[in-house]
């Protein structure tokens, strides 16, 4: 009897944890999708008809076991790159990805030379 209760409890807990995991993934995906009807809002924030349909489709695809990338690729093939907030790296936007690092390195070099110069001046 006790063993049965433990098994039921285990399954309930397992199902609960699993559904929570799916929900977290879904919200993360919705937040990265742009609502095309109400631009400026993500699918997660929007209550539009379009957003609710996208949510249904994404939910289906997550249940089918598709990865986030596969879902994004599918939606990009249907609506273009515009549907996702986080763009993928390509020749048109490589600067967007690498410019912050370049600036960081460049800034670091400037600071390094300024410090070295001031030390050199002090020594003299």
């Amino acid at each position, binding site marked *: 009897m006790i063993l049965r209760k433990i098994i039921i409890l285990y399954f309930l807990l397992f199902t609960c944890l699993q559904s929570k995991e799916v929900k977290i993934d879904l919200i993360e995906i919705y937040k990265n999708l742009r609502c095309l009807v109400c631009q400026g809002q993500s699918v997660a924030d929007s209550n539009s008809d*379009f957003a609710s*349909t996208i949510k249904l489709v994404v939910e289906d695809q997550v249940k089918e076991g598709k990865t986030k990338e596969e879902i994004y690729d599918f939606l990009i*093939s*249907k*609506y273009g790159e515009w549907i996702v907030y986080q763009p993928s790296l390509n020749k048109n936007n490589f600067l967007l990805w690498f410019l912050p690092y370049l600036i960081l390195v460049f800034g670091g070099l400037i600071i390094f030379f300024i410090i070295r110069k001031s030390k050199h001046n002090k020594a003299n």
Partner: protein
Amino acid sequence: MKNKFSKIIIFGFVISFLSIFWLGLKKDNSYNTKDLIGGKITNFQLRSIYNSDLITEENLKKNQFTLINFFASWCAPCRLEHKYLVKLVNQKKNIKILGINFKDKKNNAKTFLNELGDPYYFVAEDTDGKASILFGIYGIPESILIDKELTVIKKIIGPIDQEKLEEIFRLIK
């Protein structure tokens, strides 16, 4: 000399940043479908609103051109465009229209077609709207013109009017 070099570097950076911001401001940030032209319509299976018949992409390959039209009886602009769809099938024999009834009740759709005429060679149902995502639709009315290789030639957002009808005529000539 060193000072001049630093000034040139700083000036170069300022100009580069201003150019990036200027290009960003000039860029059109509204959704458009120009990147979708040339793509393929694949992997769909839809059921008729009249019976259990199914339509797939294989059926569309038999048509020289197909216009996939999303409509609903509750959509006012769909009523406005409907006469142009009737005109299209009456004037051109090389095109067939696949109607996809979007988030609608079957009986209302049937009444709509009885009242305004039925230009569709197949009317499919999309009760929950999920099929619309397969076609990259985000509002209705919306139409997609494809050829027999199922390549998207034109995507029309909003109702078809005389001007858009003439454009379709030109494209399927």
